[in-house]
């Protein structure tokens, strides 16, 4: 076992300090060390998107980022989307549109969709599908996810001009 490294970072707007081995992924650190298990592991090799988190101003698959790379960064996970007990409009739209079945892909989709709506306030269906194509869902066929994201866009940013 290798010596552990101390990492100081910010997670969901709170300062966090943790100890990890250099080989541990950010996903592992979030889940097993910090205890934030909302971020899921579907593949461990960057191809399912269920571990998607926001790192600084970009979204990453946290299974492909090392925990030590979080030092000095700001991270948002699914646990940080809601404001207190008020759901984020995307979370609410996912529930209103029945956009989850088993729900294992949902945290990754929510983080990715949040980033999409910051970049494209009124994404077209094509833009939405393209943006979310790194996130696999095996349950829904995506229909209700796309509708939920587009409904949330209107809720957050008003109807497109």
């Amino acid at each position: 076992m290798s010596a552990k490294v101390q990492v100081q970072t910010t997670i969901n707007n709170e300062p966090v300090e943790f100890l990890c081995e250099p080989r541990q992924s950010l996903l592992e650190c979030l889940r097993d060390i910090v205890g934030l298990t909302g971020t899921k592991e579907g593949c461990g090799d960057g191809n399912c998107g269920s571990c998607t988190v926001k790192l600084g101003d970009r979204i990453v698959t946290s299974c492909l980022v090392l925990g030590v790379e979080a030092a000095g960064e700001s991270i948002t996970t699914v646990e940080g989307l809601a404001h207190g007990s008020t759901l984020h409009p995307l979370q609410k739209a996912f529930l209103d549109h029945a956009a989850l079945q088993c729900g294992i892909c949902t945290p990754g989709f929510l983080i990715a969709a949040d980033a999409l709506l910051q970049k494209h306030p009124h994404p077209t269906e094509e833009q939405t599908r393209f943006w979310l194509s790194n996130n696999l869902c095996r349950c829904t066929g995506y229909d209700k996810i796309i509708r939920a994201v587009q409904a949330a866009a209107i809720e957050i940013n008003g109807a497109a001009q």
Partner: protein
Amino acid sequence: MSTTYNVIGTRPIRHDGADKVTGRALYGADLQLARMIHGAVLRSPHAHARILRIDTSKAEALPGVFAVVTAADFPPAPADKIVDFGEGDTLLSSLRGNILASGKVLYSGHAVAAVAAVNAHVAAEAAALIEVDYEPLPCVLTAPEAMAPGAPILHENLPNGNVAELIRYEMGDLAAGFAEATVIVERELDTATVHQGYIEPQNATAFWSSDGRIHIWCSTQGSFVARDASAAVLDVPVSQVKVTPMEIGGGFGGKINVYLEPVAAMLSKKAGRPVKLVMSRRDVFTGTGPTPGSRVRVKIGVNDAGKITAAQAWLAYEAGAYPGAMVGPGAMTVFACYDIENVLIEGFDVVVNKPSTSAYRAPGAPNSALATETVLDEIAEKLGIDPLELRLRNAAKEGTRRADGPRYKRIGCIEVLEAMKASPQYNAPLPGPNCGRGVAIGFWFNAGLPSSATLSVNADGTVNLIEGSTDIGGSRTSLSMQAAEVLGLRAEDIHPTIVDTDSVGYTGVTGGSRTTFATGLAVHDAAQMVVEQMKARAARLWAVDEVSFSNGTFSANGQSLTFAQLAAQLGATGGPVSCSATVNPKGVGGSIAGLIIDVKVDPETGKTDVLRVTSVQDAGKAIHPAYVEGQMQGGTAQGIGWALNEEYFMDADGDMRNGSYLDYRMPTALDLPMIETIIVEVPNPGHPFGVRGVGEANIVPPLAAVANALYRATGKRLNRVPMNPATILGL
């Protein structure tokens, strides 16, 4: 039947919704326990080999390692003992052999040993230190090859080489039927091995306590099946095992079997600590049940009136390493949509050196429907009649007898076909050249099996629901809605909790599209018992003999109390009300589904774009229509992936070369259009609300519908699934 409901048919927010969108819901891999250690499984690199020696000493010596197990640590399996797997039985020796190989490995990915260590990294390092000497044997990978004379034999004890089971269904006079036919078409089609593809890998955590009790936490479709199978493999009484079902990240039939649970338990017994095992994605592909590859031949004859006079099918399905391909249901469903007098069906369950197959959404049915529905498409073309019209002329109806025996009660085949015919998509023109439209239909039985539920009335007028069906796609809510309907409450007034196997009566798997039907029936019955007991309380309060109950209000002689008002007085009228029901329903209603699909094929690259899709299904009664639509959309998407792209690429040595999501490419959001849905409701007489079950039938039509659409787009009848660019271009 025009029953009006207050709750059924509405779209309330699911009860577990907030937990699942905020990351609070705990799935199997999320569990953390004090002193918990982590495991890794060593898997065979060979598809077929004798194990000569396993030396675990180097692994055991690695610092941080707590325990190593191999097959030798498990009690021997008596040769003929059967384990009830809920949707089907399995030989204990097969189950046990699949969990950890002894004697021989039968597929690349077969588990050979497992390690528990301080963390998963150390466990993986230790697993790599285990020395296994193999004597490689020739392997056989497809059913036709495995049935050929001289093929390598997997199990010496099977009487017919690699054929584990022969199935034969016969009805009428086949030769006479074909003699009446004016058009006869025969085709043979192959399908590749595909995986269920649930996003959450298998996981299990177990603690073997010093008092002999074993506690298992896992993502399973059936906590009682996981309990019973684990107890059988460990050779302990079922009462020694408690399974706590965690939230489950998809299953589609693939999380009925146990893989890790007994291994985690045995590691825990040795280590004296809770042990968690989580599969990697490659382990999921190579070590857990895919669905069978198959070869199916279908021959159908029709007369000038477009009536089928005879039908014959020959099916060979790959079981994988142990007997139990889904050829039984494949054979039973191959002509299940049609009323045919003269039928012969022969099925072969064939073992091959691939992972042991498990159920996948209407298991076995898509493979066989592919052949039937493409042959019918060709016949319709030859006769010059609309493909839906040909199906309507032959559609199964009440009283139709299937070749495997049963006669249908109410069945929605005609209604589904009529809905397809009337759908907006079927009446819209295709957008241009290189486009084609295909249709197909399919049948799935749905399942009954036992279920239990307990309802307890709270003083505030709400009701707690305790049940044991793991919730894969909103069943907490579809069950609560049925309780609410009976009790005259809102869905939100019911609080559902899924509990462990010690805390609720036996409940079968969440599979076979049965949960909303069977557990729904248990909930319905328990709710009716609650109503009766509440009526008795009101009768006591009012000193009357008869109390009536409707729309949530109890009344007698001009007096009335709402459910909540009476609930507040339970303490004063004899104490709390809590009712349990356990059912074993017989009135299962089969479901018919249909698909219309428009595709466009690039003639240069062979790439297929899916332009438009409409999925139609008879739900019996849609309790929560949004989640019924979701099942239809999900099954359709999986079927399209299966039809166009998904496939295990095995090299000649039986090694899977595409065991990652990068290379085993499932449909992404960009590969699919919106999926239109039409819910048909032909009530099932065997359920108080008419529920049939909606999870599976929707995956049966897509393979054939895609094949038919590709024919219209390209003029080619393809005989191999996946119909990827290479197949389309004939490369």
